[in-house]
């Protein structure tokens, strides 16, 4: 069983470094097998991430957007190793600047035909990747309503788009 784990570990690690590179051009990252000192020496997996030009430091020192990208790289690495049938991502790209948002979107586009994405977002550009958009609204009655069904993104009024835009 341990051999099986090591095979999976290597695979996720390879995918992680590759995806990290797409989100951090010129950067490197890897997973490391460690003894978890805080957990009684139980074997664990550590994450190392080094954006281009920077020195390797603890994840805590990375910026908000950089941490989001590392988390997404792990997520996609897991996908490539063992795909889930669908992913529900709720505002996972909120901290990303324009350039990184596009990198994230490009990554998702590559997987469009391999898995299903449900994405909650306020970002107009993320909306534009949709095959289908649902709008949720709530009036003064405190009750949620689904206000649009299966709109193609082009059909969305500018109002709704700007409502979605951060």
């Amino acid at each position: 069983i341990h051999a099986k784990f090591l095979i999976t570990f290597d695979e996720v690690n390879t995918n992680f470094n590759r995806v990290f590179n797409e989100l951090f051009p010129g950067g490197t990252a890897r997973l490391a097998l460690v003894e978890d000192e805080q957990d009684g020496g139980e074997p664990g997996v550590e994450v190392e991430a080094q954006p281009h030009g920077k020195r390797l430091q603890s994840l805590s020192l990375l910026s908000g957007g950089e941490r989001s990208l590392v988390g997404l790289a792990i997520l996609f690495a897991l996908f490539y190793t063992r795909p889930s049938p669908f992913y529900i991502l709720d505002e996972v790209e909120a901290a990303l600047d324009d350039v990184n948002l596009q990198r994230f979107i490009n990554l998702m586009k590559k997987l469009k035909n391999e898995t299903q994405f449900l994405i909650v977002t306020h970002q107009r550009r993320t909306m534009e990747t949709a095959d289908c958009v649902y709008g949720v609204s709530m009036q003064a009655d405190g009750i949620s309503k689904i206000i649009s069904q299966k709109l193609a993104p082009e059909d969305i009024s500018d109002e709704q788009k700007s409502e979605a835009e951060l």
Partner: protein
Amino acid sequence: MYLRSVTIRGFKSFANKSVLRFEPGTTVIVGPNGSGKSNITDAVLWALGEQSARNLRGSSMEDVIFAGSTSKQALGTAEVAITLDNSDGAIPIDFSEVTISRRLYRSGESEYALNRTPCRLIDIHEILSDTGLGREMYSVISQGRLDDILNSKPSERRQLLEEAA
């Protein structure tokens, strides 16, 4: 396998029955702050068998039942049903479509069903266990929870990889 539809009634702010139908591909959910988008995420997590109210932003599981508003009384029941296309047999039961439903009464009583056949929560966990679906597998990432994987202990991350193995 893909998600075909989610039906929500009495769950959080969805006092009235709401149905979302999905195609394979990418669906985006938009709307103003507080309108109910993340409540949909919660509804799917709950239908997939989430047992911790805190992972649904509540202090007790009763919090997911519509609590009433200034215009409507609180409801006594919350229910969510998710329908999965199973043509590829990813779920090891002999149906091309699998509907998982969960219902919670204010008394605390719960009901679960698979394709309308009553079952237990553990049965739902069982049939989903090899699908890679759910919060621990990071296939559902709630708002603000992307950081979890960076903040988790190394031993927890190892467990995640063992699940993926």
